[in-house]
């Protein structure tokens, strides 16, 4: 019986060790796929890194609000990216990598709230 429990625990641990990296990699892929839906392309790793940097800047206060984040992104997304796409990138970035900061995005959408 104890051996059975141990076996189950071992199986769960092994599954966690094996599955965790691929689950993490899927986040970047999901993010890239969402961007594709907005017509935003480019290297997957670059976009993921840019999104994470955007989160860091917003979270640390380097960018004081979502408008500043959008301004930062506008300098670093490919030329020809529209304002709407920039905000779609920002929304996807926050939603994917730092959803605790979503209120900062919502405050732009509803400034009088």
């Amino acid at each position, binding site marked *: 019986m104890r051996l059975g429990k141990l076996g189950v625990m071992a199986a769960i641990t092994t599954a966690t060790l094996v599955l965790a990296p691929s689950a993490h990699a899927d986040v970047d892929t999901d993010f890239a796929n969402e961007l594709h839906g907005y017509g935003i392309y480019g290297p997957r790793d*670059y976009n993921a*890194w*840019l999104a994470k*940097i955007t989160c860091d800047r917003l979270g640390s206060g380097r960018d004081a609000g979502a408008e500043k984040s959008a301004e*930062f992104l506008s*300098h*670093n997304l490919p030329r020809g990216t529209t304002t709407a796409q920039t905000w779609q990138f920002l929304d996807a970035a926050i939603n994917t990598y730092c959803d605790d900061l979503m209120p900062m995005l919502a405050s732009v959408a509803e400034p009088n709230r």
Partner: protein
Amino acid sequence: MHRPRHARGTRKRRAFRAGIAILAGTLAAAVIPPMAQADGTDDFPIPHRMIVTTCTAEQILAAARDYVPVYYARYIVDKHNKSPEVQQAAIDNAHYFYSLSPSDRRAYSEEMVTHFADPMTASWPNWAKIFFNNKGVAAKETDHCADYPPGDMSVWDG
């Protein structure tokens, strides 16, 4: 109607000479371009904009943080993987470079590519990557560096 024999001979000679000219041109093109490129551009080994900029290293890094953020993030990660001594040496080297006049920077750059035993380069080959290695990055940095304070040392920490 047949063409005159001498005319055909002249044509052959012309073709032969044209062939020689093309061959010579091809050989010259194969041999000369690297030298011509090296002589004809001010961007090697250090981009011209970095030679003439009046910005400090800190201003350039601040611009990199905002305009080439992934490149900047990689550089800072790389830097933090070095010993404190090597990191400080990189800062000192950057300060030294940007304290030089443009002509002295050019001389420095010529020395840099031939001085393989340079201790700074030996301990951190990419120490100046964010400043010198990429013409496009250098362009973005120098386009915006003047907008930042000259002595903000926090830019070295990321």
